């Protein structure tokens, strides 16, 4: 990433947009293709339409419905309006046909009625023979939609799990950082030096213990009250640490709510990227990323910024952008894609 530097001439807006779209796709988790959804839907459909299944009488029920009776269709051909059972009449009509055509043109009428008879036949066929097939199609479509929704629900469940695991980790990290900010007094080098002196003096063996107990007690009380200065200081550090992780801009309210409740004590920023459906791999990746914390890979643009900033000047490095997609799992291909496009 270090050699990815932004120079005005080297910017490729299309490339940046490709990166952005790829990141959005990655954050969405698994994008099922239409064909995959169809395949999944077919599996479910067979189960539902199995005669031994729960709804075995579904098709039967449809088939046994009383059929609508339609008036019989007519056939209308070119000579139908001139037809008669009597040959003479037919002959006279044929003879007078030019006279009739002088008065009006019967052709559009014949054409329309002919077409109408065809339409009637077609509709009759559709409503009669293919009725069950139509219902089957409707059922099929319903199942497709249900399957699609199931997939979406699964994605959301995985996403909630991922957020839960992240919250757990944050809590653990908060406790660990608290411990770092207030280390046990006995562990400090100055006290390690002081301890042997006290032991040598003979009467000081109980004093350090008493002090330690008092401090532990204080810490417990502080943690409970949440108002003492040491805890506040620790919280501030946690906030600072967490603020190094820039939230991704694709914010989602649903998950942000649960995240906020857990983080509200430290007033840490929301993690808006969480609501986009995520794969199970995301959870693991998130955990790893969270463990390494500051080794997270930034977004393509953020990487660009960070590397360019470090390459350019100390001042710009201080203004390097924060890393918005800290928890987004990235593939090695991302890194390759991020590398220079001079």
């Amino acid at each position, binding site marked *: 990433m270090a050699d990815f530097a*932004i*120079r*005005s*001439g*080297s*910017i*490729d*807006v*299309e490339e*940046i*947009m490709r990166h*952005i*779209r790829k*990141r*959005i796709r990655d954050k969405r988790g698994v994008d099922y293709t239409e064909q995959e959804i169809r395949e999944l839907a077919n599996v479910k459909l067979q189960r539902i339409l199995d005669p031994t299944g729960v709804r075995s009488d579904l098709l039967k029920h449809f088939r046994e419905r009383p059929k609508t009776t339609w008036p019989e269709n007519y056939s209308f051909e070119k000579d139908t309006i001139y037809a008669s059972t009597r040959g003479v009449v037919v002959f006279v009509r044929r003879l007078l046909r030019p006279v009739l055509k002088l008065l009006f043109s019967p052709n559009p009428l014949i054409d329309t009625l002919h077409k109408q008879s065809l339409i009637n036949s077609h509709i009759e066929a559709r409503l009669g023979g293919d009725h069950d097939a139509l219902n089957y199609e409707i059922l099929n479509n319903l199942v497709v939609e249900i399957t699609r929704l199931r997939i979406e629900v699964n994605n959301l469940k995985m996403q909630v799990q991922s957020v839960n695991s992240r919250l757990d980790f944050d809590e653990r990290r908060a406790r660990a950082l608290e411990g770092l900010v207030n280390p046990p007094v006995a562990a400090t080098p100055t006290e390690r030096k002081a301890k042997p002196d006290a032991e040598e003096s003979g009467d000081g063996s109980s004093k350090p213990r008493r002090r330690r107990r008092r401090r532990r007690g204080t810490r417990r009380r502080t943690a409970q009250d949440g108002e003492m200065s040491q805890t506040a200081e620790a919280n501030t550090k946690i906030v600072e640490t967490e603020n190094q992780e*820039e*939230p*991704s*801009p*694709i*914010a*989602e*309210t649903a998950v*942000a709510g649960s995240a906020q409740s857990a983080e509200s004590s430290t007033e840490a*920023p*929301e993690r*808006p990227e969480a609501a986009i459906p995520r794969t199970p791999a995301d959870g693991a990746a998130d955990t790893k990323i969270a463990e390494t914390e500051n080794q997270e890979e930034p*977004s393509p*643009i*953020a990487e*660009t*910024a960070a590397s*360019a*900033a470090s390459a*350019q000047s100390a001042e*710009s490095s201080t*203004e*390097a*952008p*924060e890393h*918005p997609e800290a928890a987004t799992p990235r593939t090695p291909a991302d890194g390759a894609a991020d590398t220079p496009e001079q």
Partner: protein
Amino acid sequence: MKLAVVVQRYGSDVNGGAELHARYIAEHLANHAEVEVLTTCARDYVSWRNEFDPGEDRVGNLLVRRFPVRHPRDPLIFDRWSHRVFEHRHSVAHELAWLESEGPTSPQLIRHLRRNASTYDFFLFFSYRYAHAYHGCRAVGPRAVLVPTAERDPAIGLSIFGPIFRGVRGIMYNSFEERAMIHAVAGNSKVRHTVVGVGSEIPSNIDADRFRQKFDIQQPFIVYIGRLDENKGCPELFQFFRNYASRVSGSLQLVLIGRSILQIPSHPRIRQLGFVSDQDKFDALAAAHALVMPSKFESLSMVTLEAWAMGRPVLANGSCDVLQGQCIRSKAGLYYKNYEEFAETLHALETNRPLHTALSVNGSEYFQRHYSWPVIERKYLEVLNHLKREEAQRMEPLPGWFGRRRSNIAPTRKTVDALPTGPALKFNRGSRAARRG
């Protein structure tokens, strides 16, 4: 060389895109040729009411001849005709009725053009879709040069404009996308043309702090400049920005500049300033973090060019081919097509300082290279000088009485939907070839 700029409205206080474009071009070409402006007495582009006095007038150093509009636009009739020609099979007569209902119809202006055509070398007609340009181009024939300012709307598919695009002497396109669209719809690639656009009048004393103090804006902000209208994509912008403000950014504001014809949502981080002076507009651009341009229908977007002139990156609606193409060619802007892209691109602009700087530098360079006034003037003069040496062709006549009434034209929306989409990025080579040809 004597030139006439023919435009639907003209005045120092008329700030529509095409009208301002025409004014800038007229004022700058006046340095190289004798220029007159021929226009109507209308000030309002919706009603075309006669508000200026007819006759001669002076705006700046230019002589302006104004002609009255015969009748104001009736929105109901116009809507009815629009529906007829855009959505149904129709005839040439229907399209002419649509044009008449759109206006501005000024028979006196057309009569003046017809009678005095020989006294001018060329007529520069602005905005192909209005009655003055259609009838004017037919009146002056081989002296007509068109600045179409065309957007991707159903009007471009009307069959009556095909002969105009094919019959004028030259066409000054605003963008490569506009040219690709008109070539596709009219098959007029043989007509001499160039992609030129327009420059801008950048004030010399621009002060970002002055703007911040005047309007009491201390937080970083992105700015939208233009009419606050549904057609400009403003409702979508408001929705996207509210989401962005609540979920991503803690401080970025959206500042809106321009007249509003829709309800602005009440939000602590959306500020509407209304119509401001040019000085304030440029101060705002200087103070802004970026310009946002949510419109899906633009033939050029002058304010985008002005933002680049001021060294500000642009966040544009990628659904507009022109804006997307401009962002890619200039390397000075990002674009979005949905909220996710809006959020990511805006976040990148907000937080990524080197990216922001690089886009800004590119924008400034792009403007200087393609849209500075010497470049624009040179392109116009080159085309006009070429046209003086070339032979003119006759414009195709309208069909006869029966032909005009035959309802055999497909709905124009279908025609426009079938046109190729996307930014026209490989057209530089094509344009040179066309010019040579």
